[in-house]
């Protein structure tokens, strides 16, 4: 087990370096000369050449990559092309925090709806409730956010006036409810699906039958024997939820007018602000890889049955 953890710890930085190289390479393939883009209409061939030299764009690729990595390690991801003089980190930082908050609330919603419902469906297998839950959740899962978001706003904000229609006031304000539901409901569907499957798997095990035949109460078997074991595979899923933080809420943030990463990311794409764009992808990759690393290691510790060679 220790060897496995060590191997994972060694591989992670290499993986991140490779991922960073890929992102860096895409940035160089990207159209548009950074110097020209920064100078905008003041660009003359001489000025461009001077700025290229200043920015180190004339250096060979490997040197620029090493410099990129060195800066990135110090938290410097370059300067934005569109917001002149602003560092990418200072642009992304506050917006990223907003998106993370939104996604935390969404994940809590997804888990609190998804896990009990999945467990319940599995326990009711063979009755009409199980397929009813599964199909309802699948309908909600397939529902595009382009529709869910305006529908929720129309109903809960415009019609019933229960919550504000849009905007942002932090993760403890009422404004977070609708966008978090929009992201959380399809997320819940995924948890229902996996929780149901893994509960079914555990229910079929002999130790569950033994527990029942010992005369243990339904509650104790459910809690101590079934749920605890069924939750283990769900842990892996949490890593994918982390992955969704940067990408999954893009559209939702747009529709609800939330000052998260979405607006910035899209502006970066359309204004060809490649430092911002690549920084996004890189931060996303770092978050995903680290989340998966932590989860994999936690897994080997929590589940003693796992013996990795």
């Amino acid at each position: 087990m220790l060897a496995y953890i060590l191997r994972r710890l060694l591989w992670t930085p290499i993986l991140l370096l490779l991922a960073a190289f890929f992102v860096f390479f895409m940035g160089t393939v990207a159209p548009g000369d950074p110097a020209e883009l920064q100078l905008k209409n003041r660009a003359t061939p001489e000025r461009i050449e001077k700025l290229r030299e200043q920015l180190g764009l004339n250096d060979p690729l490997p040197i620029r990559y090493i410099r990129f990595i060195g800066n990135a390690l110090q938290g410097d991801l370059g300067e934005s092309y569109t917001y002149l003089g602003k560092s990418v980190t200072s642009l992304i930082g506050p917006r990223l925090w907003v998106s993370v908050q939104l996604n935390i609330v969404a994940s809590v919603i997804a888990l609190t709806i998804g896990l009990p419902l999945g467990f319940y469906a599995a326990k009711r297998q063979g009755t009409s409730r199980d397929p009813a839950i599964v199909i309802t959740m699948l309908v909600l899962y397939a529902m595009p956010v382009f529709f869910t978001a305006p529908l929720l706003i129309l109903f809960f904000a415009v019609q019933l006036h229960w919550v504000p229609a849009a905007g942002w006031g932090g993760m403890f304000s009422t404004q977070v409810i609708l966008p978090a539901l929009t992201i959380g409901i399809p997320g819940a569907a995924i948890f229902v699906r996996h929780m149901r499957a893994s509960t079914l798997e555990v229910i079929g095990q002999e130790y569950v039958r033994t527990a029942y035949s010992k005369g243990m109460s339904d509650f104790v078997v459910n809690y101590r024997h079934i749920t605890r074991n069924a939750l283990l595979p769900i842990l892996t899923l949490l890593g994918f939820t982390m992955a969704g933080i940067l990408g999954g809420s893009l559209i939702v943030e747009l529709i609800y007018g939330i000052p998260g990463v979405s607006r910035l990311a899209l502006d970066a794409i359309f204004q060809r602000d490649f430092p911002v764009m690549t920084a996004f992808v890189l931060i996303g990759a770092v978050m995903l890889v680290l989340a998966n690393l932590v989860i994999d290691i936690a897994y080997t510790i929590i589940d003693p049955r796992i013996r990795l060679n």
Partner: protein
Amino acid sequence: MTTSTSGTDSGTGDSEPTAPSLPHRGHWRNVWARFRKRKLAVVSLTIVAIIYLLGILAPVIQTHDYQETNLFKTQHGPDSENWLGTDRLGRDIYTRVVWGIQTTVIITITTFITGSLFLGVTMGLVAGYFRGKIDAVISRIGEVISAFPDILLIILLAATLRPRIVEIARNIEDSTGISGLVSSGIVDYLVIGIALLPLSWFGMMRLVRGQVLALREAEYVEAARAMGTSTPRILFRHILPNVVSPVIVAVSFGIGSIALSEVILSFFGLGVQPPRPSLGVMIGEVTARGNTSVSVLRDHPEQLLAPIAVVWLMIFCWNIIGDALNDVLNPRAR
């Protein structure tokens, strides 16, 4: 690891007779017989077939030209002339939806054949069978790609590659005299296809690799090797047929998400370019990229709901089909 020959059912959804009670009539007929018992799956398959057929037959069943604007009849509700109404520019929504489906159909099918089926399956076969260095290289490349959040990687690829691909296409147009390469939409398909490629092959590769790792130790493969059967023949004749079932399941789950990726890319303006219709472009245009979603849904719901209903149905139905196929084909897998 389950091969495709066993027939016990894990019993999710509808109850059904177990395999021994069926007359012996070949694996795929048994599979079909079991699939047919799942009513919801059959309905889903029919709906998907109809949607795809609408897309393929778009040029025949269109009632207008998808570019034709009628400024005297904008934002009009459904009537006998425009079955689903008209949009902001007076274009026929029904016609545009049908053409949008065609775009989705073309993109999902080409991406799947090149990415998942061709690249993914071959890489998986090679990695699983030869193991060692080849496996390490293929798997590590896959790991690097899967280190990125899906949608961000797709967006980055589409945004950086498009200008390059357009440039190449224009050069080809200039040097060969073929015109309309860029305007025909082929460039869009290429951009989306390439952007989706890195993601589409890896899942399939890992799946096939896992199966092959188990199968390569099977006795019949060992026997084939002992008789001096050539490696390609072992791979494609002996191993591949036993991997088909999980591949089919993976494809049916994957098509929905590939279709959704195209819709999202086009919604952001990075996929299919107007005037060519795509479901994502339609949703993006109607809602001004999300800004006016609420007022559109309130005032002109048909404009938003027409493209969304298709996306919704497609994703839902493919998932139902995937679930059913999973139960029918891989009774004890996962």
